[in-house]
């Protein structure tokens, strides 16, 4: 019954999306009966949001009670599974995750329709029409090719489980966070299209768009950070970024959103970069769509690939083509109508932002081509994979100048500035970078990119704080704090990456219980290896006593797990986090009998100095975004209040003037809209 309610809610939501699009589009016709029809767009979006959430809640409920008559539950869940993973299993599969996508899309559309009152009504109608149009595509996709509420003719006796790799709390937060980010960009896209259609590309529109871009960007940042940490500890390979196509699918929207976020800020503050902002809005959403397509269609080979279903892939590709193509057509038709914004010189803050926008786009192009290249060559029957040897140097060519300009940009003034003015700061930053390079080169023989990374991280960390110099800290705007935090987070993260790249140490050995290995200044003793079991797995668990420089040992217990339903083996790494890094231990197979006749086990241990800074940095970046949103919203609320007070005062004055002339108070009545 619950599943049928969800299914019906989904159809109704789809119908409302059609109404929303039609009423928004009709409102654009200036004369005629369209005006009447326009009032339906906002309520349609809000009700649609509720219906989509009901649909998702129904599916959540079916998973919670393991309703095995629902096909999706039977194929993806199991009555013996821990409850929390029953719930997260809702979106741990294709249909469920697409329903989550649509629910978030509808919810954000509803929020936009309900809360946003700053835009001209015509622009709002166009925005809601575009939002409805985007939603329709996904409802069609969901209802026709991936119905999550399909029933089985005969209920299954038992579910056939969930991939044990997915039985992890990382999965509970990772995909939903990314989806909120993807979908937030869809709102930014709809707003950009709405402004483009109604010729309202101006700072006012940018101020409306900015919180959505910032919000989406915060969620993408968190999603990528969580995903990276999840892959790091769950896969047991010791790496934190694999340039896997699915990771790239989340990185590309982030790169576009980062560029968009900066350009929309320039548009809001300085009324420049109008066309560029609209274009980035289109690109950012296209990357979200492309990401969804790559992950959902199964065109990729990767540990992440979900399902191989040509019908779904084709449908998603058609949607992708429709939205990107459609928006480019509108862009081409309207681009000439956007007047050029305010001018600026190359050595101004705008100039630096433009430069980094271009660098981000270039990095995006590098990642995009690298991700699509294997698909392209496969069409010609040549199988290749593209990995770090391509991405790292090719990306660095653009990332290094970007970080350098990023250090300097916030120190420049808007519109025009002379480089001579910030010469002392430049000298400090340059000498910090050179000092770090010299120090690391003296210390040992390390690869080039990590050395440059360390130097840039040092300079950037100082540069991020320089905008606060000489200012009274209590008077610094909240949004500026957000920028400082986020830029400092980039430095922290970059430091973690470079440090991991340069200083990681690894030890791989076959060890018998009682055996001791040395890794850097860590002493690692395998004390015992025992069988253990959990609710749906059995495992070999090692007890490893690790200690540094004679300190009290800590016990780590990595496991090699075997799941049933479905049968699968995973490696559970054990981590010891200290302030200056992480010790990462994995237990492997039995490695035969040693020379002394004892059973040996494969043991792999890494010492990764400051690796945790990668994710601390990610969190700082996201926090910077949150602070920035808070600052903007506060300013906006203040302005609204000020406007209201101004309005009241004007009314009072008008009333007073009216009384003086002997008219009834309250001034002339406003003309009815029709």
């Amino acid at each position, binding site marked *: 019954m619950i599943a049928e309610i969800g299914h019906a809610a989904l159809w109704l939501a789809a119908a409302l999306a059609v109404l929303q699009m039609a009423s928004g589009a009709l409102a654009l016709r200036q004369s005629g009966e369209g005006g009447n029809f326009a009032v339906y767009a906002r309520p349609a979006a809000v009700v649609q949001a509720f219906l989509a959430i009901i649909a998702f809640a129904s599916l959540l409920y079916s998973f919670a009670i393991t309703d095995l008559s629902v096909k999706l539950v039977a194929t993806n869940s199991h009555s013996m599974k821990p409850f929390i993973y029953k719930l997260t299993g809702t979106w741990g*599969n294709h249909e469920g995750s697409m329903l989550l996508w649509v629910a978030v899309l509808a919810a954000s559309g509803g929020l936009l329709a309900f809360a946003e009152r700053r835009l001209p009504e015509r622009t709002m109608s166009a925005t809601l029409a575009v939002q409805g149009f985007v939603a329709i595509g996904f409802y069609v996709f969901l209802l026709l090719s991936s119905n999550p509420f399909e029933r089985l003719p005969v209920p299954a006796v038992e579910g056939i489980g969930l*991939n044990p*790799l*997915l039985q992890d709390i990382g*999965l509970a937060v990772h*995909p939903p966070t990314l989806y909120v980010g993807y979908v937030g960009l869809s709102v930014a896209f709809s707003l950009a299209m709405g402004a483009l259609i109604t010729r309202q590309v101006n700072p006012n529109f940018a101020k409306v768009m900015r919180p959505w871009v910032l919000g989406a960007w915060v969620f993408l940042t968190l999603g990528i950070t969580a995903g990276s940490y999840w892959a790091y500890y769950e896969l*047991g*390979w010791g790496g934190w970024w694999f340039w896997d196509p*699915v990771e790239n699918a989340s990185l590309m929207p982030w790169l576009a959103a980062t560029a968009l976020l900066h350009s929309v800020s320039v548009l809001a503050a300085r009324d420049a970069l109008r066309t*560029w902002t609209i274009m980035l809005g289109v690109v950012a959403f296209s990357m979200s769509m492309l990401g969804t397509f790559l992950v959902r269609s*199964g065109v990729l*080979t*990767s*540990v*992440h*690939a*979900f*399902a*191989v279903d040509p019908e779904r892939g084709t449908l998603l590709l058609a949607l992708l083509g429709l939205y990107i193509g459609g928006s480019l057509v509108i862009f081409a038709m309207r681009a000439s109508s956007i007047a*050029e914004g305010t*001018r600026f010189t190359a050595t101004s803050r705008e100039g630096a932002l*433009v430069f980094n*926008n*271009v*660098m981000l*786009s*270039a*990095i995006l*192009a*590098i990642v995009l*081509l*690298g991700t699509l*290249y294997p698909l392209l*060559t496969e069409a010609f029957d040549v*199988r*290749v*994979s*593209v*990995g770090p*040897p*391509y991405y790292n140097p*090719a990306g660095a060519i*653009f990332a290094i100048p970007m970080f350098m300009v990023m250090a300097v940009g916030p120190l420049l003034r808007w519109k025009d500035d002379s480089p001579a003015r910030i010469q002392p700061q430049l000298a400090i930053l340059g000498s910090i970078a050179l000092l770090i390079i010299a120090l690391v080169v003296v210390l040992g023989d390390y690869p080039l990119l990590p050395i440059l990374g360390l130097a840039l991280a040092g300079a950037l960390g100082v540069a991020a704080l320089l905008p606060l110099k000489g200012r009274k800290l209590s008077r610094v705007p909240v949004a500026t704090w957000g920028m400082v935090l986020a830029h400092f987070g980039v430095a922290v993260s970059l430091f973690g990456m470079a440090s991991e790249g340069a200083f990681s140490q690894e030890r*791989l*050995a*076959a060890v018998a219980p009682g055996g001791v290995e040395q890794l850097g200044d860590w002493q690692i003793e395998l004390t015992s290896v025992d069988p253990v079991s959990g609710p749906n797995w059995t495992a070999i668990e090692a007890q490893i006593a690790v200690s540094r420089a004679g300190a009290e040992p800590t016990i780590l217990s990595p496991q*090699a797990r075997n799941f049933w339903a*479905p*049968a*699968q*083996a*995973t*490696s559970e790494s054990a981590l010891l986090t200290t302030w200056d890094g992480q010790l990462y231990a*994995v237990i*492997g197979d039995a*490695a*035969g009998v*040693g020379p002394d006749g004892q059973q040996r086990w*494969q043991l*792999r241990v890494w010492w990764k100095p400051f690796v945790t800074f990668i994710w601390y940095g990610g969190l700082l970046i996201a926090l910077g975004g949150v602070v920035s949103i808070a600052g903007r919203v506060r300013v906006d609320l203040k302005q609204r209040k000020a406007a209201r007070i101004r309005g009241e005062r004007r009314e009072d004055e008008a009333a007073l003037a009216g009384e003086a002339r002997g008219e009834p108070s309250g001034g002339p009545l406003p003309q009815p809209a029709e």
Partner: protein
Amino acid sequence: MKAKHQRLTLVVLALLAIIAAGLIAVWALRNQANYFYLPEQMASQPPQVGQAVRLGGMVQSGSLETEADGVTVRFVVTGNEASTIPVRYSGILPDLFVEGSGVVAEGSLQADGTFLATNLLAKHDENYVPKELEGLEAHEAKDVITDTVAGV
């Protein structure tokens, strides 16, 4: 620069940078892309010694042996034809890595004709087969079920 042409200049500069990125990407992809070889291909047209490539095939039954250090293994990879490539790998073997099943080895060919693997990719669960191995005979039956889950 004439202020009048600022927008045009910006567009041209941005386009130049993106085109440069594209060219760098194409050039780097030609050099750095990691090519996939079947054992017969590696035997007839071997890649350069030390070049990063991937080798995919079946682990020959009876060929897997562990060296005295307990962490280095040697095995032989075969394909559809008779050609075989010896592989050496130090590390923890992937779960479900067994003789007679498919494997993709990342690494490079050494001067002595041994393939030195830095990473092994095996099946992630009983239904998943690395995409490159789908064409191999022993896997044709499994193709039917490759459409199941393989991770997030």
